[in-house]
């Protein structure tokens, strides 16, 4: 598919207003509710004026749009001696994400692999199907970004239905999928094709964030494969408090827990909630035994899952280099520094052999 269009700022506003008035859920980066902070978050918008195109990466990833922190799977009701199940009407509301960052959009494609693997997760794919993603070339990187180290870039169109690149007063849009084409259809004739197909020069963001971390995922994986029991784990995990903040802001972490919550003595709801591998409770057995007995074992699991097990099974790392885990960690756990150290050790080992 090679459809391209020049979209003026006002044209894009028209599109957004049309979507909203058609009853679609439009998600975009907006100023975070708490006005004390200069922070953004992805949230439903009622008007295009609310959207912040520039500024830092939104606090939490786009994950919650497809995979909410809590969702009801079904309700139950006891009727005499049997149980009635009330299916939850999980209507997948048509959603358009405007201004997705490349690292967030790419994560959906990566997580698709596990969600459609041994069991097909209908809730995930139901919302995926109902969602159209308009990614924008990343406007802002900082010292915690490392998307180039995991094979992406601030201009990566992976996972996008449209990819928007800022161009004189508006955007140059590349329409990449059938879903994207359907969204364009009503405007296709009005909006002009760009004169030249040359790629816009961005503000050197890629080289800036590339300098933050220079490792090869495959070299990381090779070291991890041979160093399950390495003193490094005890050393790096010392400061970790064992909360779930890193996993919950991560666009690629997807673990969940399923709980039954009674609403009375004869009825209740089964819900699916986000879960995370750093709290001890994650693997605590009913017997009291915990196979991941300390924070070192739990932190190792986080790194192993993302950079060894996932690539071994699905061919790519479970990380898009957004750097949120680095920014959010109150204890100063720094994935960039840890991956750099592993990369260094891997190279040393490679040179020695």
């Amino acid at each position: 598919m090679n459809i391209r269009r020049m979209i003026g700022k006002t044209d894009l506003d028209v599109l957004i207003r049309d979507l909203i008035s058609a009853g679609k859920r439009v998600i975009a980066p907006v100023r975070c509710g708490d006005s004390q902070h200069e922070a953004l978050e992805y949230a439903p918008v009622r008007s295009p004026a609310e959207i912040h195109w520039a500024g830092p990466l939104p606090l939490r990833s786009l994950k919650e749009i497809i995979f909410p922190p809590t969702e009801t799977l079904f309700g139950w009701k006891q009727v005499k001696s049997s149980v009635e199940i009330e299916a939850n009407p999980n209507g997948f509301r048509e959603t358009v994400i405007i201004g997705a960052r490349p690292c967030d959009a790419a994560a959906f494609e990566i997580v698709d692999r596990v969600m459609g693997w041994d069991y097909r997760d209908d809730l995930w794919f139901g919302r995926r199907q109902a969602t159209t993603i308009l990614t924008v070339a990343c406007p802002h990187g900082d010292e915690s970004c490392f998307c180039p180290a995991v094979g992406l870039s601030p201009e990566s169109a992976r996972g996008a239905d449209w990819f928007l690149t800022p161009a004189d007063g508006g955007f140059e849009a590349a329409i990449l999928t059938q879903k994207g084409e359907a969204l364009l259809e009503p405007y296709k004739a009005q909006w002009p094709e760009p004169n030249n197909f040359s790629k816009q020069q961005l503000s050197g963001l890629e080289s800036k964030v590339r300098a933050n971390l220079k490792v090869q995922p495959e070299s990381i994986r090779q070291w991890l494969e041979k160093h399950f029991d390495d003193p490094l784990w005890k050393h790096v995990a010392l400061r970790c408090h064992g909360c779930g903040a890193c996993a919950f802001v991560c666009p690629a972490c997807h673990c969940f827990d399923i709980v039954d919550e009674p609403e009375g003595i004869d009825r209740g709801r089964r819900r699916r909630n986000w879960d995370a591998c750093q709290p001890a409770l994650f693997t605590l057995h009913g017997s009291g035994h915990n196979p991941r007995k300390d924070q070192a074992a739990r932190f190792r699991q986080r790194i192993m899952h993302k950079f060894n097990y996932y690539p071994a099974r699905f061919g790519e790392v479970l990380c898009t280099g957004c750097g949120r885990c680095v920014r959010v960690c109150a204890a100063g756990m720094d994935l960039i520094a840890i991956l750099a150290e592993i990369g260094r050790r891997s190279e040393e080992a490679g040179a020695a052999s």
Partner: protein
Amino acid sequence: MASSFEPNIVAFVCNWCTYTGADLAGTSRISMAPNVRIIRLPCTGRIDTLFILKALERGADGIIVSGCHPADCHYTAGNYHARRRFAIFRDLMEFVGIDPHRVTFSWVSASEGGKWAEVVDRTTERVRRLGPFRTYPRLARGAGE
């Protein structure tokens, strides 16, 4: 319509004073509002504030917490500890917008059957005026529901 509303009220009471007082109210055939369900516990010191929240979660419109008067605790000091805990919890509840008028704290001794009936009637009337507290259980309605 408000007058036809019959509130559900849960009472957490201590075994030694208020439960016995409520029993006395019954055996003395004192008439009182039928809206209260009693849950008997050993002592007000055993009444966790989570009992109050759980009752609200499950649809209670009002709560009564009652036990021995100061100096009368069967376990010497359970009610003194409870008094501090409930004072602070009441302030916190009010701070997050849960109307503390939905919760009655009282001391009712084993001999105060009449006072128990009064506490029940007054709480029922007050909660009836406040109306049903559906807001709290409905806080669980989130995404996809």
